[in-house]
């Protein structure tokens, strides 16, 4: 593994338990900056939980215990003096199912900006427009910015949610199976979007789709049964995996 890369997130001995069930066991992982890292693995292997532990979204579920450390730029996000809201502003997340707020398209994107305390209409307009453009949605919604976001198509909603997340300019963008509920064309658009976003953000994506992982990511981590089996550059992983289990999974022998 290439050690020259800068690690944006450094996961050290991370274990997560839901009630009495251990979902992650002593994970050690370094997520490189300005790259796309994909998490693959069979259902229930803990990849979503790992993703959510990066901005402490796991804490919203009851009875979770997290041990170990996740360093964001060298600082442990689980330290008690960390402001969770501020952490989540820096590490944005997009969920599997698009969850636009029942407001207008504009207000959805402006939501995070308003939380930041931005109030001037002109500045908001600019930032909303640029976020929608980055999410490749501007051309489709420019005429109905003030229509309800709930009436957009699934693919548009998902890009809207991404626009909403990148409007506040996070440093890391976590995508939890962002395309699993979408049709192929929308999926393609989201994948193109990730290429563009890579320049500015560190992206971590959870996916069930092997081809997707191979297409978009620079690095891939394979998890199984709550353990990190293998982590390497995507090319290497898909051509010459070092673990037997990885090969079995990639070639579709289980999972």
């Amino acid at each position, binding site marked *: 593994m290439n050690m020259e890369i800068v690690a944006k997130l450094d996961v050290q001995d991370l274990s997560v338990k839901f009630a009495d069930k251990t979902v992650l066991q002593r994970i050690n992982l370094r997520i490189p900056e300005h790259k796309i890292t994909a998490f693959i693995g069979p259902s229930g292997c803990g990849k979503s939980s790992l993703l959510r532990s990066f901005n402490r979204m796991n804490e919203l579920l009851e009875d979770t215990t997290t041990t170990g450390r996740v360093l964001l730029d060298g600082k442990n996000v689980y330290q008690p003096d960390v402001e969770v*809201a501020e952490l989540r502003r820096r590490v944005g997340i997009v969920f599997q199912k698009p969850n636009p707020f*029942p407001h207008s398209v504009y207000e959805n994107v402006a*939501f995070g900006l308003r939380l930041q305390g931005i109030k001037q209409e002109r500045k908001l307009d600019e930032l909303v427009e640029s976020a929608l453009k980055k999410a490749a949605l501007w051309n489709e919604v420019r005429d109905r910015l003030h229509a309800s976001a709930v009436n957009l198509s699934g693919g548009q909603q998902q890009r809207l949610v991404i626009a909403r997340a990148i409007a506040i300019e996070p440093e890391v963008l976590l995508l939890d199976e962002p395309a699993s509920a979408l049709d192929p064309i929308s999926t393609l658009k989201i994948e193109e979007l990730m290429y563009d976003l890579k320049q500015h953000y560190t992206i971590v994506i959870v996916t069930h789709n092997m081809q997707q992982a191979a297409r978009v990511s620079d690095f891939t981590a394979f998890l199984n049964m709550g353990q990190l089996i293998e982590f390497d550059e995507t090319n290497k992983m898909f051509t010459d995996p070092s673990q037997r289990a990885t090969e079995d999974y990639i070639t579709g022998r289980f999972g």
Partner: protein
Amino acid sequence: MSKSLLLQRRRRWYNRLFKALIGLSGVSVLLMLAALFIYLFSEVVPLLRPVTGEPLAPLSLPEQVVTPDVAGNRLGWPVTPALYAISVSGYYQLVASSEGQACFYTRQQVSGCQQQWWLTESVDTLTSISWLSAEQALLAGYKSGRLQQWFLVPDNSGIVKLQLVRELPAQSSAILHIAPEQNRRGFATLNAAGQLALYYSAAGRPLWQRATGLTADETDIKAVEFSADNKLLSVYSANQQYRFTLDNPHPEVNWQTLWHSVWYEGFSQPDYVWQTSSASDDYQPKFSLIPLTIGTLKAAFYAMLFAAPLAIMAAIYTACFLPAGPRQRIKALIELMAAFPTVILGFIAAVWLAPVIESNLLGLLLWVLVLPLSVLALAAVWPRLPSSWQHRCSGGSEVIVLMVWLMVVSGIVFFAAQYLDSWLFTDGFRFYLDKLGVYYEQRNALVIGIAMGFAVVPGIFAIADDVLHQVPPQLTRGALALGATPWQAVIRISLPLAAPGLIAACLVGFGRAMGETMIILMATGNSPITNFNLFEGLRSLTATLAIELPEATVGSSHFRVLFVAALLLLLFTFLANTAAEIVRQRLRKKYQRL
């Protein structure tokens, strides 16, 4: 084979039987509800029925001398009188000239007039005058068909004078005779065209009219009289008695007396009055539903003012901030409050709360102001506290810190208020209020607001908690993912989304408050007042029913008006609950779409 077939058949038969039973019980509930409404309506319908009257065959009378009231010359009154009227007891008397110049005097006055004036300002001829029963009102009819009603109203020095109360709608020809009803405030008129008209004192328009065909000139008809039960109206000519049966059981109740301000006898102005009974027999019952409706709304309003913020804030806390375990426990505890017998609440409110509030009024008012401010103050100070303190008091125990803080502040406020009371106001705060013209009763709307608010909280809380908890979790999660604090997620996502549900919760609470009886009955003083003064009592529809229905004579106007009140109450609660249910259904659909 045949055995299993038999079993199958029997089972099918049982199924059918049970289905029919369940259907039947469902239908019977609906029927019972319908029957309830129908019964209430059936008791109210007689009030709505118009007055009817039919002529009977005239009787011929032996030639007899009907002595008309002859106006004697009044001692010391220079005018020649043409008309004379004496009240039933003979105490009040009035003589008037045909031009309308009048002299009013009592039996005690030997000469002169208590009041002399012109009954009419325009040129007209007075054709009849008559006292109404109970000697509080006088009627004057004119040749032009005008009809005036005068009331005895005491002036500033306590001397009663006749005062013009209303001009009734004019008839087409001269009013020749006016006959008062016995023991009621109704009267009948006969005009020159031979038309009979039946009136009621508090209502403007005639209740009943009929052309008799007696195109009598002035001398032909001698008198018009009611029988003792007011069911027979007789018109006497020289040798004939023309009789009319009247069906007029409820003259004192109509739309106007129920809902408009009415100028009753003995009042100096029109007013909304609910006063259904009195010690004296010749008493005019006053059935304005306005004070009761206002009382009901007032009590419900103040109860909501107390309960709604409390219940909704509690619901926000449990639904949005508490984990499932404690949430269930607190929910169960608050719902237990709903099972609290309201009679105990009313009892505590009347016996303990009312005197305590009375003696700590200033403290309570100050407390309402200071408490929110003290919370804000604590919030402002909090970030400046040493971080070790903050850490020790996080993770739920900040609630305890807040509680202790609020208790300390409350203690200080009530303690200080006692000194302030004597220091700021020489005779105490209550006396000061009196001087300001704010009347204070011990059992008032404030007490009701708190006591009934307590009873209403669980209902509002249950619904508010539900609608807040049903806000789709992916939305709050989305807000949190964008860097919102939990509080911001509640304010910006949950509350706006659940707002219709919170309104529904308040409507349900409002309906419950309007239907509440025991607390109001025990802790309001039950004075039928038409105002929204926080420090005065009230009388609600519910309490009125509870107090008066056992006393009302079955079938009387009073009895039927109480049924109107019951219907009104049903209507209010029905409206509030239906509106709430509609809002909730729509919200549920909205949640499903998200």
